[in-house]
């Protein structure tokens, strides 16, 4: 089709903000070449994360850190970006956009993403120097500059925006007062109880409040000197920030005759009254609603991009909204209804005055329709999920208010019983040789209260992690700290989020790079660490096959160097042997490589291949080149990836063999090699139930029987020996491949990084996997298709790609 079209369509975007550029990213992901794209931005900057301006104001981030798409991104995608030159008119007949400087851009499709303007009441004194709003980088710079020379600030507005501005200025050393029209803060997102708690906490942090305060004028003659309230109160100030809200920026839409109410009216297809003009973000109105939160806007971007790409079925529905306040150390969350509105509504409330926590759920027909959380908000996303799913909460009603952990509790056991019974000399951590007495005495001596603390000071549970439950038990027994009660474990010290949350967010919010994930999920350290970066890299790779660019610097050494590092800093190299089969030519090439590079040791591995041990880093590319020349490729023996497919000789040779297990093994390996996973994955195929290939301790094991193939999953011969569970029995070889691909894809999409299939299966349960892979044929085929699709990008020999890679070379300074 593309080849026949005479020229590409022209898409003009007015607004270089988050909504517009998100739509463009989504569009490029769907169809990179359909449009010639021109973007008009009024600000001089590339596209940045407006939500993070609060963090910039508070000094927690720099402006560079909040850039979403750099100018290089526009160049790479051939987008013409015009900054500092606002679009000023639209001619719908000539189909052109004209900018302030007189530039005229013709369009076939037009996207309005003009965002919003600060809402400013008509107050005397508004134009005085020292008065600003809180909307863009220029505003933030103005506030930062003021904070360096001035002392007192007044913020008008005690909503989300105003409080974040107030906190930022406070952090920059100013004394800050907030004037708010209503009796309690954030009254649109919080009920009275939570709003009162919030005011108390901010008050303790030194912010003064004037609630029920109607601003009458901003005083001053040369510059602002304060504000005067209607009841006579006066608040002195050197700068005044007006942050009472936003209103859609509809000027262009109105001027060119589109239908405009509060915002530019769009339909479920994101198109305005003119079918060639679309709108997204804060400038639009959809079914009477206008928008200020990011979640629905991402959804709009998705639908709008789909429509622009030609998908006539994409339809926008506003998702349930939730709010979070970005003030460090103050946790507030709300979603849906704030209180019972109808007679049949019920409220569940839990309050701990001493700890300053508060939880409220609004129920209707045994379903959650709203929540307000204060002080402890980690269950917020879970409640929203229940809301979205319309889950019936009758069965867990008595525990629901306590959150996800309590609601999913089924019985109670004394978790310390097991460790209590152990002697002090009993070894807890086998990797690092740490016994119970050492751990308990360190916990007492150093007053340790966290798993990380115990790991740092004793090394127990710091290597393979299999003794973590025992260490947690010791913490509970010795220090009375329940390490598990803290909810889902954070991925690492860089974030409070657990793996499940992050995986979900990456997909749901279409996050496409590691910096984007870290930025949007509030990572505490800008580059993360050695623990979270490889996990994020994998999650993104799995979520966006063919699109995400693998970040080599976020790969563990083995996956970056495509070989397995040994204790002396040399590497082991293992070429792939399909199904464990080899031949004289390959064996000769391996022997030649070992001679040529003086490789000190060779070993046959448990996975039926040959390991070359003691290869120097600098020799790796040359070793691979020689192995490649003999037709061999990387065995991925170093990766969180498909390792081996172990086979027996099967019916071809064996007098007991029922099927050709070797050929089946080769077929499985040809299908799965190169795939990346949360952890290593091993397969095996045995030709009869004698099971010589040990298929029942593999991640996916196949056992041939006379009438077909038994498929087994979740086995592990490693730290915890676990025999497989029988998934099902199939009759045909192509079914073996389909079920295998589907199960591996399910594991790839759902397991947490560094969990093998065994703990994954323990977590979700065999019944769940059966429901997904066996009982639901449609789902199985969809999983299988996604696996094969990802494989089209993964099946490239990483060794062959390293010929040009010079980073293996040691640099030598000249004399």
């Amino acid at each position, binding site marked *: 089709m593309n080849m026949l079209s005479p020229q590409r369509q022209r898409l003009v975007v007015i607004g270089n903000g988050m909504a517009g550029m998100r739509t463009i990213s989504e569009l490029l992901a769907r169809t990179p070449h359909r449009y010639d794209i021109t973007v008009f931005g009024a600000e001089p900057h590339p596209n940045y994360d407006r939500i993070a301006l609060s963090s910039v104001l508070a000094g927690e981030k720099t402006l560079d850190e909040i850039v979403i798409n750099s100018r290089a991104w526009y160049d790479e995608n051939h987008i013409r970006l015009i900054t500092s030159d606002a679009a000023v008119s639209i001619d719908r007949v000539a189909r052109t956009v004209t900018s302030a400087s007189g530039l005229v851009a013709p369009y076939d499709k037009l996207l309005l993403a003009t965002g919003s303007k600060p809402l400013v009441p008509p107050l005397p004194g508004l134009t005085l120097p020292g008065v600003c709003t809180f909307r863009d980088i220029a505003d933030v710079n103005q506030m930062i500059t003021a904070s360096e020379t001035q002392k007192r600030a007044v913020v008008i507005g005690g909503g989300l925006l105003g409080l974040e501005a107030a906190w930022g200025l406070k952090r920059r050393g100013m004394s800050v007062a907030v004037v708010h029209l209503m009796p309690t803060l954030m009254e649109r997102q919080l009920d009275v109880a939570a709003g009162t708690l919030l005011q108390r906490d901010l008050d303790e942090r030194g912010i003064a409040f004037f609630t029920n305060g109607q601003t009458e004028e901003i005083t001053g003659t040369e510059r602002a000197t304060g504000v005067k309230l209607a009841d006579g109160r006066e608040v002195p100030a050197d700068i005044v920030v007006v942050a009472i809200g936003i209103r859609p920026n509809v000027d262009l839409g109105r001027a060119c005759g589109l239908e405009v109410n509060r915002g530019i009216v769009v339909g479920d297809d994101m198109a305005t009254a003119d079918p060639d003009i679309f709108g997204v973000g804060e400038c639009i109105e959809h079914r009477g609603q206008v928008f200020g939160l990011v979640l629905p806007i991402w959804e709009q971007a998705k639908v709008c991009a789909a429509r622009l790409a030609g998908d006539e079925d994409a339809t926008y529905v506003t998702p349930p909204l939730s709010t979070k306040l970005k003030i460090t150390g103050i946790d507030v969350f709300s979603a849906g209804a704030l209180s019972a509105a109808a007679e049949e509504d019920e409220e569940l409330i839990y309050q701990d005055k001493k700890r300053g926590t508060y939880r409220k759920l609004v129920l209707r027909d045994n379903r959650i329709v709203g929540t307000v959380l204060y002080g402890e908000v980690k269950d917020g996303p879970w409640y929203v999920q229940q809301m979205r799913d319309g889950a019936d909460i009758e069965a867990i009603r008595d525990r629901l208010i306590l959150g996800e952990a309590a609601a999913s509790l089924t019985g109670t056991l004394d978790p310390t019983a097991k460790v209590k019974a152990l002697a002090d000399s009993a070894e807890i951590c086998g990797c690092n040789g740490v016994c119970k007495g050492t751990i308990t005495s360190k916990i007492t001596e150093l007053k340790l209260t966290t798993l990380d603390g115990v790991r740092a000071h004793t090394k127990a549970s*710091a290597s393979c992690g299999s003794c973590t439950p025992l260490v947690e038990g010791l913490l509970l027994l010795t220090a009375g700290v329940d390490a598990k009660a803290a909810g889902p474990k954070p991925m690492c010290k860089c974030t409070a989020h657990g793996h499940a949350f992050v995986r979900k967010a990456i997909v749901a919010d279409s996050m496409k790079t590691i910096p984007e994930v870290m930025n949007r999920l509030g990572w505490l350290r800008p580059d993360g*660490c050695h623990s979270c970066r490889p996990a994020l890299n994998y999650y993104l790779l799995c979520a966006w096959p063919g699109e995400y660019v693998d970040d*080599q*610097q*976020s790969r563990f050494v083995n996956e*970056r160097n495509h070989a397995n590092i040994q204790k002396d800093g040399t590497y082991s190299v293992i070429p792939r042997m399909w199904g464990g089969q080899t031949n004289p030519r390959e064996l000769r090439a391996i022997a030649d490589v070992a001679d040529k590079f003086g490789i000190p040791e060779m070993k046959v591995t448990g996975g039926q291949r040959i390991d070359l041990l003691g290869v120097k880093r600098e020799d790796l590319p040359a070793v691979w080149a020689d192995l490649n020349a003999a037709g061999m490729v990387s065995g991925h023996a170093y990766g969180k990836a498909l390792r081996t497919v172990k086979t027996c000789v099967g019916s071809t040779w064996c007098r007991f063999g029922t099927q050709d297990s070797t050929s089946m093994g080769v077929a499985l390996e040809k299908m799965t090699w190169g795939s990346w996973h949360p952890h290593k994955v091993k397969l095996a195929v045995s030709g009869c139930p004698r099971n010589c290939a040990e298929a029942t301790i593999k991640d996916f094991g196949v056992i041939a029987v006379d009438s077909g193939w038994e498929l087994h999953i979740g086995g592990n011969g490693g730290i915890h020996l676990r025999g497989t569970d029988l998934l099902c029995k199939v009759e045909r070889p192509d079914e073996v491949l389909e079920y295998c691909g589907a199960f591996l894809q399910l594991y790839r999409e759902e397991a947490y990084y560094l969990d093998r299939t065994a703990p994954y299966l323990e977590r979700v349960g065999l019944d769940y996997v059966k429901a997904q892979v066996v009982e639901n044929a449609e789902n199985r085929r969809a999983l299988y298709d996604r696996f094969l699709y990802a494989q089209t990008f993964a099946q490239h020999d990483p060794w062959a790609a390293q010929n040009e890679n010079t*980073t293996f070379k*040691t*640099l030598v*300074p000249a004399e």
Partner: protein
Amino acid sequence: MDGSIISGAQGTQWVEVARLGDIPRLGSRVVSAPKGDVAIFRTSDDSVFALDDHCPHKGGPLSQGIVHGHNVTCPLHNWVIDLSTGEAQAPDIGCVKRTPVRLEGDRILLALRA
């Protein structure tokens, strides 16, 4: 690498060992120095550091570790080393020898002793 001598004082010479572009951000390269391998690191803010390529714990090659902030994690047992001081992050105890390094434009110069 066409390294050249920039200046010298008391047996120490600033020697060009690489261009900034030779090292990926959050990556490193190994330089063969008279007293053993030195790892040069480039952090996300384009700062450059040089340490002996030898973890104080079990001698792991720090150059092959993951760089984050101004730290590198040893690939063998996850000790975290502060690139600016060479010190291991508490509670681990140990220190790696640093080599003075500086950037002139995009040229990376190491102070190597003859």
